[in-house]
């Protein structure tokens, strides 16, 4: 079902993106100050493709931090509701990393399922994901240990691999057909194909296998009340960095913003690390301190999601490892838990 691989020369990338920008919204890594972020681009010159990974994950394109669910006007005795319509013009997520593409896979499962979220599912349907394989992963990356890999194609529609002066483009599914039909793509020759295989094999080597995951799910069940959690989480500040930058974290809050008789119900990101997440009106909070909240994040990603969504809630992108102000390393936490002892 996937179309044959082709070549995209780097010199012709700009013209390909130029055409793409005409008909669709193209989101790609751009540099803002010293930080690389995924933003909509107006011109190909903004795109930066030599980058370990963006600071924020591309989930913010399909599941933005603030999204209007509906507008309303409400007066005495009557009310009207109206739902925003998504732009028909499709989106392209260009140049995102395989781990983030894999993150979208989990979001598809969570927001899909029996009771579908029309906002996410609507955007996702007309979005083409073009992922770019990693040839030089960060020391904090551990996608291999989470079932992914620097050249994994999961969650992606068109997979690009940098082999020097060109990219090898592999169509993963029919969604990439329209893009691959563009004339900047050339037939794949033997020599480039061999080069691609070599790069693929080498890409995983620099990433030392870090996380022992086999017996993790049973250990987590057994360790739920183990005092090891107190030591593991004592330095945690309870901020929202790890959940907001995570490509698979999807928890949100619903609230109204109103002025006079009109207003809107919006969805905003929320974090299980914040105390109000489970604070009940009676004052009782089942997760009153940082220990329970940090444990919930680990349990949800490595025990509950594998059971309900058949894949862990972590793709090993390493953002929470590099960005945690107190360097609480999820790899160490998971490794020590799967061995059943404290750090």
């Amino acid at each position, binding site marked *: 079902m996937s179309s044959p691989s082709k070549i995209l020369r780097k010199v012709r990338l700009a013209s390909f993106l130029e055409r793409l920008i005409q008909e669709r919204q193209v989101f790609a890594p751009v540099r803002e100050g010293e930080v690389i972020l995924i933003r909509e681009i107006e011109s190909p010159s903004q795109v930066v493709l030599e980058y370990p990974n963006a600071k924020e994950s591309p989930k913010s394109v399909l599941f933005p931090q603030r999204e209007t669910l509906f507008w309303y006007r409400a007066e005495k005795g009557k009310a009207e509701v109206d739902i925003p319509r998504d732009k028909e013009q499709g989106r392209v997520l260009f140049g995102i990393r395989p781990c983030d593409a894999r993150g979208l896979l989990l979001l598809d499962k969570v927001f899909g399922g029996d009771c579908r979220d029309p906002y996410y599912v609507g955007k996702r349907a007309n979005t083409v994901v073009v992922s770019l394989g990693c040839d030089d992963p960060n020391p904090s990356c551990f996608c291999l240990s989470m079932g992914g890999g620097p050249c994994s194609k999961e969650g992606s529609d068109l997979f690009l691999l940098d082999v020097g002066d060109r990219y090898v483009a592999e169509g993963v599914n029919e969604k990439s057909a329209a893009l691959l039909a563009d004339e900047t793509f050339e037939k794949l020759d033997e020599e480039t194909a061999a080069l691609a295989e070599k790069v693929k094999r080498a890409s995983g080597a620099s990433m030392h296998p870090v996380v022992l995951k086999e017996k993790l799910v049973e250990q987590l069940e057994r360790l739920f009340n183990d005092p090891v959690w107190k030591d593991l989480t004592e330095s945690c500040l309870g901020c929202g960095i790890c959940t907001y930058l995570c490509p698979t974290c999807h928890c949100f809050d619903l609230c*109204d913003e109103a002025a006079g008789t009109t207003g809107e119900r919006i969805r905003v990101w929320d974090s299980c690390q914040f*105390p109000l997440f489970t604070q*009940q009106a*009676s004052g009782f*909070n089942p997760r009153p301190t940082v220990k329970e909240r940090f444990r919930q994040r680990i349990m949800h990603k490595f025990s509950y999601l594998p059971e309900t969504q058949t894949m862990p809630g972590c793709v090993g992108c390493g953002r929470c490892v590099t960005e945690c102000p107190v360097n609480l390393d999820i790899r160490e936490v998971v490794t020590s838990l799967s061995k059943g002892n404290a750090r």
Partner: protein
Amino acid sequence: MENPYVPFLMRIEEIIVETEDENIKTFELSFVGKADEERFVYTPGQFAEISVFGKGEAPFGMASTPTRPGRLAFSVSKIGVVTGELHRMEKGDVVGVRGPLGNGYPLESFKTKSLVLVGGGFGFSTLRSLTNFILHDSSRKDYGHLTVIYGARRPGLLLYKRDLEHWRERADLQLHLTVDKGENGWQGHVGFVPDVTRAVAPNPRNAYAVVCGPPAMIHFTLPVLKELGFGDENIFLSLEMRMKCGIGKCGRCNVGSKYICRDGPVFSQQELSRLTTEAHMQEGCTGHGARCTEKHR
């Protein structure tokens, strides 16, 4: 595509002040749109998210019985932003409703069985729905002996006083009301619900127990039921967690691999024991129901 976040409109037809401190009111709502009424098929134990436009949403169990068409009833305790606004509303005002949500009580497995409904304080609303449903002519014969044990802190805080009158006159229902502190003119039991349950000692043979109320009451009632011989698979609980989306997406009510809003709120004690021990926290056994919005410690 069906949008599970957008509420349909309902109008306030009647407001009943349930408690002497006027803290809990029951709102009788009628459907503004006919199509919404047809679609809203629910069973007792399910809940809905009520939208007060401009203030937000909050989950409430349906206190009305499905056997009474055209109307939904919700009991609202005045405690926060949304409930505060609801308590300021009058007849004719319009609110948004999303639902029915959650799984509701397992009526099929209750059939031909005796039922012991144990409720406390504000948690009694869905048990009222279940009781009225069972007592309705079309379904009373499907169920066996019915015992209702309902307690509150003071007589003035008992909800649904008119229903309690009707129930007292019914021969096919054993009603036990209790209050923590008796007052003059009070004939019912005096004491906590768990102690009254032990005194009433309902027969566990061929019977199910349903417990719904504040975590502390659940925490002390469960051992009594086990003492009386009710097995884990015969005890059902309606759990209380902070909820927002009601459709298992926003992650708030996640306990173990379950979402209380979608996989619950009704669980058998057997299902709960398989969940992580955090599930038992729902029965208030953390020991320190900290009134704690501690931001990071």
